[in-house]
């Protein structure tokens, strides 16, 4: 099972060649090379979070880029009270939620293709061949149903599911990003999973 890495780690998984704090300080002074390094470190996660929230590649592309631009402009207000990544995440999440509120009821999906590994993921293969009553279901159909169900959730509930069950963030990290307490995160996660389970019951029940 693929698990997302802890928040403070590099996207590539390698140890950071330059300390994040140093890069932030240089970027704050207007050093675009340093900021480019920061963007490269976190681009995949920020993009993925926004994409899973919107289920639309084009929107995710715009929002992710705008989040990085906004973060650069607001770097001077970054006090260092949280990690740069948490702060950046917060900007992206807020921007995405605002976008979704504006686009309410006018959301359309533009899904990315599944990568090659999906067909070989044992969990997913089991869903298609063994555990799904609708045996004609394929991965693309599952993908569409899953995204449709996610879009039915409220932004806050969807965000918790995306951050925890897709991105692999801990409850504590999610609470920091969403600026709420851990109990709220847990209750939202529980409710969101219940909703998803009900909507996707045809694809989850064993035969």
């Amino acid at each position, binding site marked *: 099972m693929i698990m997302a890495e802890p928040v403070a780690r590099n996207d590539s998984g390698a140890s950071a060649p330059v300390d994040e704090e140093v890069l932030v300080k240089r970027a704050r002074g207007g050093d675009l090379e340093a900021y480019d390094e920061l963007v490269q470190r976190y681009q995949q996660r920020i993009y993925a979070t926004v994409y899973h929230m919107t289920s639309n590649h084009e929107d995710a592309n715009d929002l992710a880029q705008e989040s990085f631009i906004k973060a650069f402009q607001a770097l001077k207000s970054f006090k260092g009270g949280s990690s740069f990544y948490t702060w950046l995440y917060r900007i992206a999440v807020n921007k995405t939620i605002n976008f979704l509120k*504006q686009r309410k009821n006018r959301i359309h999906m533009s899904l990315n293709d599944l990568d090659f590994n999906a067909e070989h993921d044992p969990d997913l293969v089991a869903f298609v061949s063994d555990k799904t009553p609708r045996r004609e279901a394929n991965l693309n159909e599952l993908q569409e149903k899953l995204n449709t169900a996610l879009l039915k959730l409220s932004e806050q509930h969807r965000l918790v599911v995306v951050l925890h069950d897709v991105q692999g963030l801990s409850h504590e990290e999610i609470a920091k990003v969403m600026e709420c307490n851990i109990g709220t995160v847990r209750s939202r996660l529980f409710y969101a999973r219940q909703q998803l*389970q009900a909507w996707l019951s045809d694809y989850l029940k064993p035969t």
Partner: protein
Amino acid sequence: MNENQPNFESLRRLLALKRHETPPPGYFNNFSRQVITRICAGETGAEAGFSGRLFASMPWLLQWVQSLETKPVFAGGFATALCALLLFGAVIAQRPDSVAQAILQPAPQEVAPLVASATPTTMVQPVNPMFIEDNSTNPVSNFASAPIGQMPVSAQFASFPISSGN
């Protein structure tokens, strides 16, 4: 206890499918470059320069703008108020003509008594009755058409009682 707790394991495994949704190959090769290019091009630089300072000095303004973006009811109310203001302005802009006509027409009747009570030495002297039409609406013509002999020649303090209607 466990029997009462819903088992979300199947759901969590299904959600793993989301991690296999990836953007087109090579997408991230240019991502950071695009971000830096947009920053350099100042696409939002001017906005950050001016509005950034503006919002920093007036946080309530930022909240207000964000409310416009996120709350359709608020935005609709604001737009309605703006339209009402424009309509009011348009109505007011048309009114001066009618007001001016209303002022001009009764002017001869109202001005005459004012003039009669005035001491017109300084007013009469520059007026040449030869050049003033009798049917003119200019209040001076009524005054100037008065017999010269009835006009006082000494300078006195002039007072103009103004009616409340004007």
